[in-house]
């Protein structure tokens, strides 16, 4: 049972990681470091990716065609790999958002979990 629970949590986490990244990229193209910084600041440090898991996620999303990475060279800057969300990425983001909204509603209504923003 424990194993089952943990794996369920893992997949939930994995799903949330995808959601974070897709959501951020929906706002604009970002490279890996910026992504990790945004996630860090927006979650106020409560969510962090290790280096490998961040890029593994990015690569996985890319392989599934949800985002596309591109090497961009800008004058006076290092060459960086920027990621952009694709159309299927947007669709996936929308459906993720819906799922999570349902899930959070359930958490609030069933488990009494209070969303963080409701405190303010």
């Amino acid at each position, binding site marked *: 049972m424990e194993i089952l629970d943990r794996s369920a949590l893992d997949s939930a986490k994995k799903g949330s990681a995808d959601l974070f990244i897709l959501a951020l990229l929906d706002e604009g193209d970002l490279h890996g470091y910026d992504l990790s910084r945004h996630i860090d600041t927006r979650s106020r440090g409560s969510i962090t990716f290790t280096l*490998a*898991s961040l890029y593994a996620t990015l*690569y996985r999303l890319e392989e599934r065609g949800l985002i596309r990475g591109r090497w961009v060279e800008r004058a006076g800057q290092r060459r*960086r790999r920027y990621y952009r969300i694709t159309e299927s990425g947007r669709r996936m983001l929308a459906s993720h958002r819906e799922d999570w909204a349902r899930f959070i509603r359930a958490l609030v209504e069933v488990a009494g979990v209070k969303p963080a923003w409701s405190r303010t």
Partner: protein
Amino acid sequence: MNPPPDFRGEVRRRGSSTGTDLPDAMVEELAQHLEDLYEAALAAGAPPGAAAQQARRALDGSSVTPLVPHAARIAPPQSLAAMTALRAALRQFRHHPAFALIVVIVLGLSVGAAATVFSIVDTVVLRPLPYRAPDRLVTIWDTNAEKGLSHDPISPVTFMDQRGLPVFSDAAAWWRPGVNLTDPGLDPLRVQTIETSGNLFDVLGVGPQLGAGFPSGGPLFVQKELITVISDRLWRTRYGADPSIIGRQLLFNGTPYTVVGVMPPKFHYPDDIDVWQRLQWDMTQHSRAAHFMEAVARLADGATIQQAQAAIESLGSRLQVDESRTNAGWNSRVIALLEDALGYYRPALMVLFGAVGLLLVIGIFNVASLLLTRALSRDREMAVRMAMGASPRQIVTQLFLESLALSVAGAMAGIVASLAVLPLVVALTPVEVPRLADAAVSWRAVAAAGGVVAATTLLFGLIPALLLLRTQLGTQLRSGERGSSRSARRIYSALVAGEVALACALLVASALLIRTVGGMMSTPIGVAADDTLVTTVQLTQLRGGGADVASLLKRWQQVADQHAQILDRLRNQPGVASAGAANFLPLDAGWRNPFTIDGEAMPARREDLPQAQMHTISEGYLETMGARLVHGRAFSSFDTTDATGVVIVNEAFASRFLGGRLDGRALRVWATSIGPLGVNLKANPADVHSGVVFEIVGVVGDIANVGLGQPVEPAIYFPARQFPFSEQFIVVKASDAGTGLAAIRAALRDVAPNVPMANVDSWGRRFERRSAVARMLMSVLLAFGGLAGLLAAIGVYGLFSWSVALRRRELAIRLTLGASPGGVGGLVVRQGALLVTIGLIAGWVIVRLAASALTRVLFGVTASDLTATFVASAVLLLATLAACLPAAARAMRVDPVEGLRAE
């Protein structure tokens, strides 16, 4: 500001520590991330050391393992992915330098040899001749099956008939007079000259670069006006490229010729000619029996070389009947000009080309088997990598790139070696190969090397990779069992058997050439004169007197006297032991003319008269050349025009025509004048029909007078004082070469200051040049054969070492079950013998298939010669069996306990 730490290196090392080569693009992206962290820390006020620590923590805090499955799939710039794989490949070689070095050396040797030989073949054989439509040009030669002649000069009269055949649009003919060029204030020079029909340049389709050349139109073959065309080389070296040379008169043998043209650079047709004089006598008025001209013809539009051959043969057959006195037994043949110009070189180069091709294939097989075993010995590594998520494509790509790197390196080494070696080959070749001087490493050779690289890459890279994949997909890491070993061993055995087969073919071919050259060198030629110096002396036509017979004879008497004086002066020089002269050297055929033994009945028809070679020699010639006098006497200075006409005959003549009765015999000849070359002073010009009688005063042991290895023809030797020739070979036996040379120079200066000194060489050197091509071919093939044998032995060694290592467990079990160590070793040797035997048999088949090409470079031995086949095979068998002995010994030392223990 401190430079940021080497994050790329750290990321890469982190990858390697888990057994993965992270692709460059991934390394780059991760390192960028770390640099960003580092800079952020710096910006936040951390000292560089602490900032680096902070960045590193991000790396330390995570394993790169989740990234591995994506390693190949992220979309880096294509070049980066290839670079990563290539870098990984090169890293492999850094860890195993000996392996990489061996592969590059083997490939470099084979590609280098192939590129060199191919460049030479390309320049010498394949490139068209620089004439108009050169493939429409043929040469015409006389043949005489009875005399074993297949490439003899033709008669001027018969040529005129041949020229009229409709299969030819035109034909030109020439002969080669010995010509001295004299200019006031310059040293006299012997120039390579032909006197040719005026249409030669039209037939070839080449015009002079300067001047009008021979005028076209008018009678082509009888023109009294003395005109000449000279080569660019002569024009530049002797006349400083002076354009006013046109119209100037040059003195050839004292006779003035007007220059009407200078040929373009490098034009020296037919071989090394500097002067082309226009023919000034009527070819139809000569003799059909005199074979001294060469000819080139242009095929008529639509005519094939076969049709030309048929037409010329049917003309020949008709002349054999109509002109049986002179043409009985003779016919003619046509040969494509290029094929004729190359002669023996063409088949020799083609054989060499075949040999180097075999060597190349052996090299490739060798490297392929090396790569095969190496790839298979890495199956654990590959299994780990696949378990880590490497895709099959990635693994194949890496193996492919590894072999690509090796073959590119090998091919480059080969091309570089070829670039370095080819000029040396050209410079050091002891024989004059036509057009060899133009040889340069050609783009075609480089392209061929590229093709080899492509082919080898496929072979090297893909077969082991595919074998591996099959294993990996089948067995994964389950056990140490090597499912690939069986098919690998089969492929490996086939490669090694192939190597043995090709090496066998090469060794048999070189053994055949050794027998050929050995036979050539040991053919008795009837002289012992290795150190005797040889040169030619062409006396300038002596002038004075009219065109009547008496003045002609007087002039020829002067020629005879002057030659005699030169020899006398020569004999009186210090250090000279003996000296003599002849109009033909050994191995060259003399003029073939009819004769009869005096006192024997004349045949009813003149054409039934026997023929023999006729040579002119001076007193002292036989002695100087170390010839053996078997009966009677040699010539002396008393055999002059005033004395009785005398001749010496060779043993072949004596046994065929004299039947053992030698004393008091005489013979009758009709040969009175050999064109402008020589004149029989004993002949009575008033009565040419009854002939001249010469007493036979001696018999000389046979001196070779046809090619090496052919039976000596009957020959008659005339004394030079009675039958002089304007051009003679002078032979000198002196205490040493320098003394001899000085003596020749002094004698010529004293007696004939206008006569240039020609090349002086020893008879031994001249004789060696006769067999130089075959000997050179033999040495090269022997080197190739030895190399091939070595590679084959290495292949056998590698195969059995590997297979014994793989089968240790099986062998151990056999030993446990009671097999004796000797039996186990014997098993290995038996398998080796079987493999090698299969290879040898395949090698014989290859030789059999190549027999027609080989036959053209062999003399006195056939391509199926048993001795050569046996010896070459035995050598190879011993070498390869010796190569599997170490493996057999290792098999015998296997510990039986291993069978119970292993894995």
